[in-house]
Protein backbone atom coordinates (compact mmCIF):
# COMPACT_ATOMS: atom_id res chain seq x y z
CA UNK A 1 0.00 0.00 0.00
CA UNK A 2 1.85 2.98 -1.24
CA UNK A 3 -0.77 5.15 0.46
CA UNK A 4 0.85 4.40 3.75
CA UNK A 5 4.30 5.59 2.81
CA UNK A 6 4.88 8.96 4.47
CA UNK A 7 7.17 10.24 1.74
CA UNK A 8 4.71 9.11 -0.90
CA UNK A 9 1.92 10.87 0.96
CA UNK A 10 3.84 14.11 1.10
CA UNK A 11 4.54 13.89 -2.60
CA UNK A 12 0.89 13.27 -3.40
CA UNK A 13 -0.19 16.10 -1.15
CA UNK A 14 2.13 18.56 -2.81
CA UNK A 15 1.10 17.50 -6.29
CA UNK A 16 -2.61 17.48 -5.53
CA UNK A 17 -2.36 20.86 -3.90
CA UNK A 18 -0.60 22.20 -6.97
CA UNK A 19 -3.42 20.95 -9.15
CA UNK A 20 -1.64 18.02 -10.76
CA UNK A 21 -4.24 16.00 -12.64
CA UNK A 22 -2.35 12.73 -12.38
CA UNK A 23 -2.15 13.10 -8.64
CA UNK A 24 -5.92 13.27 -8.54
CA UNK A 25 -6.10 10.24 -10.76
CA UNK A 26 -3.90 8.42 -8.33
CA UNK A 27 -5.97 9.62 -5.44
CA UNK A 28 -9.08 8.42 -7.18
CA UNK A 29 -7.62 4.99 -7.83
CA UNK A 30 -6.57 4.50 -4.25
CA UNK A 31 -9.55 6.04 -2.46
CA UNK A 32 -12.65 5.80 -4.68
CA UNK A 33 -13.73 2.53 -3.17
CA UNK A 34 -13.28 3.77 0.40
CA UNK A 35 -15.28 6.90 -0.33
CA UNK A 36 -17.97 4.88 -2.11
CA UNK A 37 -18.44 2.56 0.84
CA UNK A 38 -18.31 5.35 3.39
CA UNK A 39 -20.98 7.19 1.43
CA UNK A 40 -23.16 4.13 1.37
CA UNK A 41 -22.90 3.68 5.10
CA UNK A 42 -24.04 7.22 5.61
CA UNK A 43 -26.91 7.31 3.15
CA UNK A 44 -27.81 3.69 2.59
CA UNK A 45 -28.23 3.74 -1.15
CA UNK A 46 -25.60 2.35 -3.49
CA UNK A 47 -26.67 4.38 -6.44
CA UNK A 48 -26.68 7.62 -4.49
CA UNK A 49 -23.38 6.59 -2.92
CA UNK A 50 -21.85 6.37 -6.36
CA UNK A 51 -23.00 9.87 -7.18
CA UNK A 52 -21.75 11.12 -3.87
CA UNK A 53 -18.39 9.51 -4.47
CA UNK A 54 -18.05 11.32 -7.80
CA UNK A 55 -19.12 14.58 -6.18
CA UNK A 56 -16.56 14.09 -3.46
CA UNK A 57 -13.65 13.97 -5.87
CA UNK A 58 -14.89 16.97 -7.79
CA UNK A 59 -15.27 18.85 -4.55
CA UNK A 60 -11.79 17.73 -3.57
CA UNK A 61 -10.43 19.08 -6.82
CA UNK A 62 -12.16 22.39 -6.31
CA UNK A 63 -10.89 22.81 -2.81
CA UNK A 64 -7.40 21.45 -3.45
CA UNK A 65 -5.77 24.58 -2.11
CA UNK A 66 -6.99 23.66 1.31
CA UNK A 67 -4.81 20.58 1.41
CA UNK A 68 -2.23 21.01 4.14
CA UNK A 69 1.35 20.53 3.06
CA UNK A 70 2.07 18.23 5.96
CA UNK A 71 0.21 15.12 6.88
CA UNK A 72 -0.42 11.53 6.01
CA UNK A 73 -2.91 9.98 3.67
CA UNK A 74 -5.46 12.22 2.06
CA UNK A 75 -8.12 9.62 2.69
CA UNK A 76 -9.42 11.31 5.90
CA UNK A 77 -9.77 14.57 4.02
CA UNK A 78 -11.74 12.86 1.26
CA UNK A 79 -13.95 11.04 3.74
CA UNK A 80 -14.58 14.36 5.45
CA UNK A 81 -15.76 15.90 2.20
CA UNK A 82 -17.98 12.90 1.59
CA UNK A 83 -19.39 13.21 5.09
CA UNK A 84 -20.30 16.82 4.50
CA UNK A 85 -21.96 16.04 1.21
CA UNK A 86 -23.83 13.14 2.77
CA UNK A 87 -25.50 15.38 5.32
CA UNK A 88 -27.61 16.90 2.62
CA UNK A 89 -28.49 13.52 1.22
CA UNK A 90 -29.48 12.07 4.54
CA UNK A 91 -31.72 14.93 5.25
CA UNK A 92 -33.39 14.83 1.95
CA UNK A 93 -33.94 11.20 1.89
CA UNK A 94 -35.40 11.05 5.35
CA UNK A 95 -38.12 13.40 4.37
CA UNK A 96 -38.56 11.73 1.07
CA UNK A 97 -38.72 8.31 2.51
CA UNK A 98 -41.20 9.32 5.12
CA UNK A 99 -43.38 10.78 2.46
CA UNK A 100 -43.09 7.88 0.11
CA UNK A 101 -42.98 5.29 2.78
CA UNK A 102 -46.28 3.77 2.13
CA UNK A 103 -45.54 3.34 -1.50
CA UNK A 104 -43.12 0.59 -0.78
CA UNK A 105 -39.69 0.62 -2.24
CA UNK A 106 -38.96 0.08 -5.85
CA UNK A 107 -38.32 -3.52 -6.75
CA UNK A 108 -34.76 -4.45 -6.16
CA UNK A 109 -33.64 -4.76 -9.71
CA UNK A 110 -29.94 -5.49 -10.03
CA UNK A 111 -28.56 -3.08 -12.57
CA UNK A 112 -25.36 -4.99 -12.91
CA UNK A 113 -24.49 -8.57 -12.31
CA UNK A 114 -24.62 -8.72 -8.60
CA UNK A 115 -25.35 -10.99 -5.76
CA UNK A 116 -28.92 -10.05 -5.00
CA UNK A 117 -29.11 -12.28 -2.00
CA UNK A 118 -26.08 -10.70 -0.48
CA UNK A 119 -27.58 -7.33 -1.11
CA UNK A 120 -30.80 -8.12 0.68
CA UNK A 121 -28.91 -9.61 3.56
CA UNK A 122 -26.92 -6.43 3.86
CA UNK A 123 -30.10 -4.43 3.78
CA UNK A 124 -31.65 -6.55 6.48
CA UNK A 125 -28.70 -6.27 8.75
CA UNK A 126 -28.59 -2.57 8.34
CA UNK A 127 -32.30 -2.29 8.95
CA UNK A 128 -31.92 -4.05 12.26
CA UNK A 129 -28.86 -2.17 13.33
CA UNK A 130 -30.18 1.18 12.37
CA UNK A 131 -32.93 0.90 14.88
CA UNK A 132 -30.39 1.24 17.62
CA UNK A 133 -28.23 3.62 15.67
CA UNK A 134 -31.16 5.89 15.04
CA UNK A 135 -30.85 7.17 18.57
CA UNK A 136 -27.58 8.79 17.69
CA UNK A 137 -27.20 12.27 16.40
CA UNK A 138 -25.80 12.56 12.90
CA UNK A 139 -22.51 13.92 14.17
CA UNK A 140 -22.14 11.01 16.56
CA UNK A 141 -22.84 8.56 13.80
CA UNK A 142 -20.33 10.21 11.55
CA UNK A 143 -17.65 9.73 14.14
CA UNK A 144 -18.68 6.14 14.59
CA UNK A 145 -18.63 5.55 10.84
CA UNK A 146 -15.25 7.17 10.39
CA UNK A 147 -13.58 5.46 13.32
CA UNK A 148 -15.26 2.08 13.21
CA UNK A 149 -15.91 1.44 9.57
CA UNK A 150 -13.33 3.48 7.76
CA UNK A 151 -10.74 2.81 10.41
CA UNK A 152 -9.57 6.35 10.93
CA UNK A 153 -7.62 7.26 14.02
CA UNK A 154 -9.06 9.95 16.29
CA UNK A 155 -6.76 12.62 14.91
CA UNK A 156 -7.67 11.54 11.39
CA UNK A 157 -11.38 11.63 12.18
CA UNK A 158 -10.87 15.06 13.72
CA UNK A 159 -9.13 16.19 10.56
CA UNK A 160 -11.86 14.75 8.37
CA UNK A 161 -14.60 16.56 10.25
CA UNK A 162 -12.66 19.69 10.99
CA UNK A 163 -13.22 19.41 14.71
CA UNK A 164 -10.83 19.03 17.68
CA UNK A 165 -9.80 15.54 18.72
CA UNK A 166 -11.56 16.10 22.02
CA UNK A 167 -14.81 16.58 20.16
CA UNK A 168 -14.35 13.28 18.38
CA UNK A 169 -13.86 11.64 21.75
CA UNK A 170 -16.86 13.25 23.36
CA UNK A 171 -19.10 12.37 20.45
CA UNK A 172 -17.99 8.79 20.65
CA UNK A 173 -18.62 8.89 24.35
CA UNK A 174 -22.14 10.19 23.89
CA UNK A 175 -22.74 7.61 21.24
CA UNK A 176 -21.78 4.92 23.69
CA UNK A 177 -24.18 6.18 26.32
CA UNK A 178 -27.03 6.18 23.85
CA UNK A 179 -26.22 2.75 22.55
CA UNK A 180 -26.32 1.56 26.11
CA UNK A 181 -29.89 2.75 26.33
CA UNK A 182 -30.65 1.18 23.01
CA UNK A 183 -29.54 -2.13 24.45
CA UNK A 184 -32.30 -1.88 26.98
CA UNK A 185 -34.80 -1.09 24.34
CA UNK A 186 -33.76 -3.98 22.22
CA UNK A 187 -33.86 -6.29 25.20
CA UNK A 188 -37.45 -5.36 25.64
CA UNK A 189 -37.97 -6.17 22.03
CA UNK A 190 -36.56 -9.53 22.77
CA UNK A 191 -33.92 -9.49 20.15
CA UNK A 192 -31.26 -11.61 21.72
CA UNK A 193 -28.68 -11.48 18.99
CA UNK A 194 -28.90 -7.78 18.50
CA UNK A 195 -28.72 -7.09 22.20
CA UNK A 196 -25.51 -9.02 22.38
CA UNK A 197 -24.14 -7.06 19.49
CA UNK A 198 -25.04 -3.75 21.00
CA UNK A 199 -23.49 -4.84 24.27
CA UNK A 200 -20.34 -5.62 22.38
CA UNK A 201 -20.44 -2.29 20.64
CA UNK A 202 -20.79 -0.43 23.90
CA UNK A 203 -17.82 -2.33 25.29
CA UNK A 204 -15.76 -1.68 22.23
CA UNK A 205 -16.67 1.97 22.16
CA UNK A 206 -15.63 2.29 25.76
CA UNK A 207 -12.36 0.58 25.05
CA UNK A 208 -11.74 2.61 21.97
CA UNK A 209 -12.15 5.79 23.90
CA UNK A 210 -9.16 6.41 26.15
CA UNK A 211 -10.87 9.17 28.08
CA UNK A 212 -13.51 6.70 29.16
CA UNK A 213 -11.03 4.12 30.23
CA UNK A 214 -9.61 6.54 32.70
CA UNK A 215 -12.98 7.36 34.08
Amino acid at each position, binding site marked *: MSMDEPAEQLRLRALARA*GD*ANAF*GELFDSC*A*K*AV*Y*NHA*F*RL*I*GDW*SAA*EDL*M*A*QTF*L*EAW*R*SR*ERIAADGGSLRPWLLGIATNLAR*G*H*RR*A*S*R*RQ*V*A*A*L*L*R*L*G*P*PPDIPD*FSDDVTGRL*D*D*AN*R*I*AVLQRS*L*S*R*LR*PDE*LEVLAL*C*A*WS*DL*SYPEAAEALGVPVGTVRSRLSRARAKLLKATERERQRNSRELTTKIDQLVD*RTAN*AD*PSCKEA
Partner: protein
Amino acid sequence: MSDDRAQLREWYSVPADRDLPPGRHLLHRENLMNQILNEPSGSQPGNSGPSRDSHPSPRRPSSRRPSARGLLATAAAVALVAEAGVTVGEKLSPHPGSPAKPTASSAAPATTVTAVLDAAARAAAAGPAVKIGPNQDFYVKAKVTANFPVSALVPSPHSLLTPLPPPSKPASQVVQGWIAQSQVKETLWKVDRHSTILGPGTGIFVTGAPFVTMGGNIAGHAPGGSILYPTYAYLQSLPTNPRQLLDLIEKQTPADSPDQRDGALAVIEQLLATTIMPPQTAAALYRAAALIPGMTLIPDVTDALGRHGIGISIHQDVYKTDEDVWIFSKTTHQFLGVRERAVVPGPGKETHTLVSAVLARGIADSPGGTPTLIK
Protein backbone atom coordinates in the same frame (compact mmCIF):
# COMPACT_ATOMS: atom_id res chain seq x y z
CA MET B 1 -6.68 0.98 20.22
CA SER B 2 -6.62 0.17 16.54
CA ASP B 3 -7.51 -3.31 17.64
CA ASP B 4 -10.70 -1.99 19.15
CA ARG B 5 -11.47 -0.17 16.03
CA ALA B 6 -10.94 -3.31 14.04
CA GLN B 7 -13.41 -5.12 16.24
CA LEU B 8 -15.86 -2.33 15.98
CA ARG B 9 -15.51 -2.42 12.29
CA GLU B 10 -16.01 -6.12 12.15
CA TRP B 11 -19.20 -5.98 14.11
CA TYR B 12 -20.40 -3.12 12.13
CA SER B 13 -19.33 -4.42 8.79
CA VAL B 14 -22.68 -3.68 7.34
CA PRO B 15 -22.21 -4.42 4.62
CA ALA B 16 -18.78 -5.52 3.63
CA ASP B 17 -16.83 -3.20 1.40
CA ARG B 18 -18.04 -3.34 -2.10
CA ASP B 19 -16.37 -2.47 -5.36
CA LEU B 20 -17.92 -0.01 -7.70
CA PRO B 21 -20.04 -1.66 -10.37
CA PRO B 22 -17.96 -2.89 -13.28
CA GLY B 23 -16.79 -0.13 -15.53
CA ARG B 24 -17.93 2.61 -13.19
CA HIS B 25 -14.53 3.22 -11.65
CA LEU B 26 -13.07 4.00 -15.03
CA LEU B 27 -16.06 6.05 -16.05
CA HIS B 28 -15.95 8.22 -12.97
CA ARG B 29 -12.22 8.53 -13.21
CA GLU B 30 -12.57 9.71 -16.76
CA ASN B 31 -15.24 12.23 -15.78
CA LEU B 32 -13.00 13.55 -13.06
CA MET B 33 -10.05 13.83 -15.40
CA ASN B 34 -12.17 15.60 -18.00
CA GLN B 35 -13.39 18.00 -15.42
CA ILE B 36 -9.88 18.72 -14.29
CA LEU B 37 -8.32 18.98 -17.72
CA ASN B 38 -11.09 21.08 -19.20
CA GLU B 39 -10.94 23.62 -16.47
CA PRO B 40 -9.78 26.95 -17.84
CA SER B 41 -6.15 27.36 -16.89
CA GLY B 42 -6.72 30.63 -15.12
CA SER B 43 -9.38 29.36 -12.81
CA GLN B 44 -8.63 29.15 -9.17
CA PRO B 45 -9.90 26.58 -6.82
CA GLY B 46 -12.29 27.87 -4.26
CA ASN B 47 -10.72 29.11 -1.12
CA SER B 48 -13.72 29.51 1.00
CA GLY B 49 -14.90 26.14 1.88
CA PRO B 50 -16.67 23.80 -0.43
CA SER B 51 -17.15 26.41 -3.02
CA ARG B 52 -19.98 25.64 -5.27
CA ASP B 53 -19.74 28.94 -6.98
CA SER B 54 -16.36 28.73 -8.51
CA HIS B 55 -16.50 25.73 -10.70
CA PRO B 56 -16.81 26.44 -14.36
CA SER B 57 -17.90 22.93 -14.95
CA PRO B 58 -17.34 22.57 -18.66
CA ARG B 59 -18.61 19.09 -18.51
CA ARG B 60 -20.79 18.48 -15.61
CA PRO B 61 -20.85 15.00 -14.28
CA SER B 62 -23.94 13.19 -15.33
CA SER B 63 -24.77 12.62 -11.73
CA ARG B 64 -26.09 16.04 -11.09
CA ARG B 65 -28.36 15.52 -8.18
CA PRO B 66 -30.32 18.47 -7.04
CA SER B 67 -29.75 18.05 -3.48
CA ALA B 68 -31.58 16.64 -0.81
CA ARG B 69 -33.45 19.75 -0.22
CA GLY B 70 -35.28 19.76 -3.46
CA LEU B 71 -36.17 16.22 -2.95
CA LEU B 72 -37.28 16.50 0.55
CA ALA B 73 -39.68 19.26 0.01
CA THR B 74 -41.01 17.91 -3.20
CA ALA B 75 -41.47 14.48 -1.84
CA ALA B 76 -43.38 15.85 1.03
CA ALA B 77 -45.37 17.75 -1.48
CA VAL B 78 -46.46 14.60 -3.15
CA ALA B 79 -47.45 13.29 0.19
CA LEU B 80 -49.54 16.28 0.88
CA VAL B 81 -50.89 16.25 -2.57
CA ALA B 82 -51.91 12.75 -1.98
CA GLU B 83 -53.40 13.59 1.28
CA ALA B 84 -55.65 16.35 0.53
CA GLY B 85 -54.65 17.56 -2.78
CA VAL B 86 -53.64 20.78 -1.38
CA THR B 87 -52.54 23.60 -3.39
CA VAL B 88 -49.74 25.75 -2.71
CA GLY B 89 -49.79 29.37 -3.19
CA GLU B 90 -49.26 30.94 -6.46
CA LYS B 91 -46.41 33.03 -5.36
CA LEU B 92 -43.39 31.15 -4.34
CA SER B 93 -40.76 33.59 -3.47
CA PRO B 94 -38.72 34.40 -6.51
CA HIS B 95 -35.79 35.06 -4.23
CA PRO B 96 -34.51 31.76 -3.08
CA GLY B 97 -32.08 33.36 -0.71
CA SER B 98 -34.75 35.21 1.14
CA PRO B 99 -37.56 32.89 1.91
CA ALA B 100 -40.88 34.58 1.83
CA LYS B 101 -41.39 35.49 5.41
CA PRO B 102 -45.02 35.02 5.94
CA THR B 103 -45.51 37.65 8.50
CA ALA B 104 -47.99 36.34 10.91
CA SER B 105 -48.15 39.71 12.50
CA SER B 106 -49.20 41.54 9.40
CA ALA B 107 -52.80 42.04 8.49
CA ALA B 108 -55.01 41.51 11.47
CA PRO B 109 -54.07 38.06 12.62
CA ALA B 110 -57.50 36.93 13.59
CA THR B 111 -56.06 33.49 14.03
CA THR B 112 -52.89 31.80 15.16
CA VAL B 113 -51.19 28.67 14.00
CA THR B 114 -52.59 26.87 16.99
CA ALA B 115 -56.07 28.14 16.35
CA VAL B 116 -55.98 27.11 12.71
CA LEU B 117 -54.71 23.65 13.49
CA ASP B 118 -57.22 23.31 16.26
CA ALA B 119 -60.00 24.25 13.88
CA ALA B 120 -58.65 21.70 11.42
CA ALA B 121 -58.67 19.14 14.20
CA ARG B 122 -62.28 19.90 15.02
CA ALA B 123 -63.21 19.63 11.36
CA ALA B 124 -61.46 16.28 11.15
CA ALA B 125 -63.11 15.03 14.32
CA ALA B 126 -66.52 15.95 12.96
CA GLY B 127 -65.90 14.11 9.72
CA PRO B 128 -67.42 10.73 8.93
CA ALA B 129 -65.55 7.68 10.10
CA VAL B 130 -64.60 5.90 6.92
CA LYS B 131 -62.79 2.69 7.46
CA ILE B 132 -60.27 1.47 4.95
CA GLY B 133 -59.26 -2.17 4.84
CA PRO B 134 -55.75 -3.52 4.53
CA ASN B 135 -56.58 -4.96 1.11
CA GLN B 136 -57.88 -1.69 -0.22
CA ASP B 137 -56.19 1.30 -1.77
CA PHE B 138 -56.42 4.88 -0.68
CA TYR B 139 -57.26 6.84 -3.81
CA VAL B 140 -56.33 10.45 -4.33
CA LYS B 141 -56.57 12.73 -7.31
CA ALA B 142 -54.95 16.13 -7.39
CA LYS B 143 -54.07 18.92 -9.70
CA VAL B 144 -50.43 19.79 -9.36
CA THR B 145 -48.74 22.78 -10.88
CA ALA B 146 -44.98 22.48 -10.72
CA ASN B 147 -41.97 23.72 -12.58
CA PHE B 148 -40.69 20.19 -13.05
CA PRO B 149 -42.33 16.93 -14.13
CA VAL B 150 -44.16 15.55 -11.13
CA SER B 151 -43.40 12.05 -12.35
CA ALA B 152 -39.84 12.71 -11.19
CA LEU B 153 -41.09 12.39 -7.63
CA VAL B 154 -42.02 8.78 -8.08
CA PRO B 155 -39.09 6.59 -7.12
CA SER B 156 -37.30 4.92 -9.96
CA PRO B 157 -36.70 1.21 -9.96
CA HIS B 158 -33.09 1.85 -9.12
CA SER B 159 -33.15 4.50 -6.52
CA LEU B 160 -35.41 6.41 -4.24
CA LEU B 161 -33.24 9.41 -4.70
CA THR B 162 -34.41 10.22 -8.16
CA PRO B 163 -32.88 13.52 -9.08
CA LEU B 164 -35.24 16.25 -10.13
CA PRO B 165 -34.64 17.78 -13.52
CA PRO B 166 -33.75 21.46 -13.52
CA PRO B 167 -36.73 23.74 -13.08
CA SER B 168 -38.47 24.99 -16.18
CA LYS B 169 -41.84 26.56 -16.88
CA PRO B 170 -44.60 25.66 -14.44
CA ALA B 171 -47.11 23.24 -15.86
CA SER B 172 -50.24 21.62 -14.52
CA GLN B 173 -50.48 17.90 -14.21
CA VAL B 174 -53.13 15.58 -12.89
CA VAL B 175 -51.82 13.11 -10.37
CA GLN B 176 -53.71 10.05 -9.26
CA GLY B 177 -52.57 7.57 -6.70
CA TRP B 178 -53.86 4.19 -5.59
CA ILE B 179 -51.88 3.82 -2.42
CA ALA B 180 -51.67 0.32 -1.05
CA GLN B 181 -52.67 -0.08 2.58
CA SER B 182 -50.64 -3.18 3.16
CA GLN B 183 -47.06 -4.08 2.61
CA VAL B 184 -47.87 -6.92 0.30
CA LYS B 185 -49.70 -4.92 -2.31
CA GLU B 186 -48.67 -2.74 -5.19
CA THR B 187 -49.19 0.98 -5.33
CA LEU B 188 -50.06 2.74 -8.55
CA TRP B 189 -49.26 6.32 -9.44
CA LYS B 190 -50.55 8.02 -12.54
CA VAL B 191 -49.19 11.36 -13.65
CA ASP B 192 -51.43 12.44 -16.49
CA ARG B 193 -51.49 9.24 -18.50
CA HIS B 194 -48.20 7.86 -17.39
CA SER B 195 -48.45 5.02 -14.88
CA THR B 196 -45.87 3.74 -12.46
CA ILE B 197 -46.40 0.65 -10.39
CA LEU B 198 -44.41 0.34 -7.20
CA GLY B 199 -43.74 -3.15 -6.05
CA PRO B 200 -45.19 -4.59 -2.90
CA GLY B 201 -43.63 -5.89 0.18
CA THR B 202 -40.23 -4.86 0.99
CA GLY B 203 -40.89 -1.42 2.32
CA ILE B 204 -38.65 1.19 3.65
CA PHE B 205 -37.37 1.46 7.11
CA VAL B 206 -37.26 5.02 8.23
CA THR B 207 -35.38 5.86 11.32
CA GLY B 208 -33.28 8.71 10.12
CA ALA B 209 -29.56 8.69 10.10
CA PRO B 210 -27.53 6.96 9.05
CA PHE B 211 -29.21 4.59 6.68
CA VAL B 212 -32.26 6.49 5.85
CA THR B 213 -33.24 5.10 2.56
CA MET B 214 -32.40 1.50 2.98
CA GLY B 215 -34.91 -0.68 1.30
CA GLY B 216 -35.01 -4.06 2.85
CA ASN B 217 -37.38 -6.82 3.58
CA ILE B 218 -39.22 -5.70 6.61
CA ALA B 219 -41.89 -8.31 6.52
CA GLY B 220 -42.88 -9.05 10.05
CA HIS B 221 -41.35 -5.84 11.23
CA ALA B 222 -44.54 -4.73 12.86
CA PRO B 223 -47.22 -7.31 12.51
CA GLY B 224 -49.69 -5.26 14.49
CA GLY B 225 -48.93 -2.10 12.58
CA SER B 226 -46.71 0.78 13.52
CA ILE B 227 -46.76 4.50 13.12
CA LEU B 228 -45.01 4.02 9.78
CA TYR B 229 -47.06 1.05 8.67
CA PRO B 230 -50.36 1.71 10.31
CA THR B 231 -53.42 -0.40 9.91
CA TYR B 232 -56.74 1.21 10.63
CA ALA B 233 -56.96 -0.75 13.85
CA TYR B 234 -53.53 0.43 14.85
CA LEU B 235 -54.48 4.03 14.18
CA GLN B 236 -57.57 3.58 16.31
CA SER B 237 -55.39 2.40 19.16
CA LEU B 238 -53.21 5.52 19.15
CA PRO B 239 -53.49 8.04 21.96
CA THR B 240 -55.77 10.95 21.17
CA ASN B 241 -53.90 13.16 23.57
CA PRO B 242 -51.78 15.30 21.26
CA ARG B 243 -48.77 15.37 23.55
CA GLN B 244 -48.76 11.63 23.98
CA LEU B 245 -49.22 11.15 20.27
CA LEU B 246 -46.34 13.45 19.46
CA ASP B 247 -44.16 11.64 21.96
CA LEU B 248 -44.99 8.40 20.27
CA ILE B 249 -44.16 9.84 16.87
CA GLU B 250 -40.93 11.34 18.07
CA LYS B 251 -39.87 8.03 19.46
CA GLN B 252 -39.92 6.80 15.89
CA THR B 253 -37.68 9.61 14.74
CA PRO B 254 -34.08 10.05 15.76
CA ALA B 255 -33.79 11.24 19.31
CA ASP B 256 -31.90 14.46 19.87
CA SER B 257 -31.46 14.83 16.19
CA PRO B 258 -31.41 18.36 14.90
CA ASP B 259 -33.82 17.05 12.33
CA GLN B 260 -36.24 15.68 14.83
CA ARG B 261 -38.75 18.39 14.25
CA ASP B 262 -38.72 17.70 10.56
CA GLY B 263 -38.81 14.01 11.24
CA ALA B 264 -41.98 14.27 13.28
CA LEU B 265 -43.53 16.54 10.71
CA ALA B 266 -42.64 14.11 7.97
CA VAL B 267 -44.36 11.31 9.82
CA ILE B 268 -47.43 13.43 10.34
CA GLU B 269 -47.47 14.41 6.70
CA GLN B 270 -47.08 10.84 5.69
CA LEU B 271 -50.00 9.74 7.81
CA LEU B 272 -52.17 12.52 6.51
CA ALA B 273 -51.11 11.78 2.99
CA THR B 274 -51.35 8.10 2.54
CA THR B 275 -54.22 6.70 4.49
CA ILE B 276 -57.62 7.38 5.92
CA MET B 277 -57.58 7.89 9.62
CA PRO B 278 -60.17 7.54 12.30
CA PRO B 279 -61.53 11.06 12.89
CA GLN B 280 -60.21 11.25 16.44
CA THR B 281 -56.74 10.19 15.30
CA ALA B 282 -56.69 12.77 12.53
CA ALA B 283 -57.77 15.42 15.00
CA ALA B 284 -55.06 14.45 17.46
CA LEU B 285 -52.53 14.54 14.67
CA TYR B 286 -53.34 18.15 13.80
CA ARG B 287 -53.12 19.11 17.45
CA ALA B 288 -49.85 17.24 17.76
CA ALA B 289 -48.50 19.18 14.80
CA ALA B 290 -49.45 22.38 16.61
CA LEU B 291 -47.05 21.41 19.39
CA ILE B 292 -44.13 21.45 16.99
CA PRO B 293 -42.42 24.82 17.16
CA GLY B 294 -41.46 27.12 14.37
CA MET B 295 -44.56 27.39 12.23
CA THR B 296 -45.97 30.65 11.03
CA LEU B 297 -49.30 31.73 9.71
CA ILE B 298 -49.97 33.00 6.20
CA PRO B 299 -53.34 34.73 6.18
CA ASP B 300 -54.06 34.11 2.53
CA VAL B 301 -52.70 31.61 0.05
CA THR B 302 -54.23 29.94 -2.96
CA ASP B 303 -54.08 26.40 -4.15
CA ALA B 304 -53.68 25.04 -7.67
CA LEU B 305 -57.35 25.61 -8.31
CA GLY B 306 -57.12 29.19 -7.14
CA ARG B 307 -59.01 28.46 -3.95
CA HIS B 308 -58.07 30.82 -1.15
CA GLY B 309 -57.06 29.41 2.18
CA ILE B 310 -55.06 29.96 5.34
CA GLY B 311 -51.50 28.75 5.20
CA ILE B 312 -49.32 27.20 7.86
CA SER B 313 -45.74 27.73 6.84
CA ILE B 314 -43.17 25.20 7.86
CA HIS B 315 -39.69 26.41 7.22
CA GLN B 316 -37.15 23.69 7.13
CA ASP B 317 -34.95 23.81 10.16
CA VAL B 318 -31.59 23.68 8.57
CA TYR B 319 -32.16 25.03 5.13
CA LYS B 320 -34.14 28.16 5.64
CA THR B 321 -34.54 28.57 1.94
CA ASP B 322 -37.00 25.73 1.76
CA GLU B 323 -40.59 26.08 2.74
CA ASP B 324 -43.66 23.91 2.97
CA VAL B 325 -47.06 25.42 3.42
CA TRP B 326 -50.13 23.49 4.46
CA ILE B 327 -53.29 25.12 3.23
CA PHE B 328 -56.61 24.98 5.02
CA SER B 329 -60.00 26.17 3.92
CA LYS B 330 -60.92 29.46 5.54
CA THR B 331 -64.46 28.32 6.15
CA THR B 332 -64.44 24.60 6.80
CA HIS B 333 -60.81 24.39 7.91
CA GLN B 334 -60.40 21.24 5.94
CA PHE B 335 -56.99 20.51 4.61
CA LEU B 336 -56.82 21.76 1.04
CA GLY B 337 -53.32 21.21 -0.11
CA VAL B 338 -49.77 22.32 0.02
CA ARG B 339 -47.29 24.71 -1.44
CA GLU B 340 -43.67 23.74 -1.64
CA ARG B 341 -40.50 25.55 -2.43
CA ALA B 342 -37.07 23.99 -2.47
CA VAL B 343 -33.88 25.61 -3.59
CA VAL B 344 -31.31 23.55 -5.38
CA PRO B 345 -27.88 24.35 -4.04
CA GLY B 346 -25.36 25.37 -6.60
CA PRO B 347 -24.39 28.31 -8.69
CA GLY B 348 -27.84 28.85 -10.15
CA LYS B 349 -29.76 28.60 -6.91
CA GLU B 350 -32.55 27.09 -8.90
CA THR B 351 -35.87 26.78 -7.18
CA HIS B 352 -38.29 23.93 -7.51
CA THR B 353 -41.85 24.92 -6.83
CA LEU B 354 -45.04 23.02 -6.55
CA VAL B 355 -48.64 23.95 -5.91
CA SER B 356 -51.39 21.42 -5.58
CA ALA B 357 -55.10 21.07 -5.06
CA VAL B 358 -56.87 17.91 -4.11
CA LEU B 359 -59.67 17.06 -6.46
CA ALA B 360 -60.91 13.85 -4.92
CA ARG B 361 -60.21 11.20 -2.33
CA GLY B 362 -61.63 7.77 -2.04
CA ILE B 363 -61.20 4.08 -1.55
CA ALA B 364 -60.57 1.56 -4.30
CA ASP B 365 -60.40 -2.19 -4.21
CA SER B 366 -57.50 -2.53 -6.59
CA PRO B 367 -54.80 -0.38 -8.15
CA GLY B 368 -56.45 1.45 -11.00
CA GLY B 369 -59.89 0.38 -9.88
CA THR B 370 -62.80 2.79 -9.76
CA PRO B 371 -62.76 4.48 -6.38
CA THR B 372 -65.65 5.13 -4.08
CA LEU B 373 -65.21 8.80 -3.36
CA ILE B 374 -65.44 10.26 0.10
CA LYS B 375 -65.98 13.79 1.11
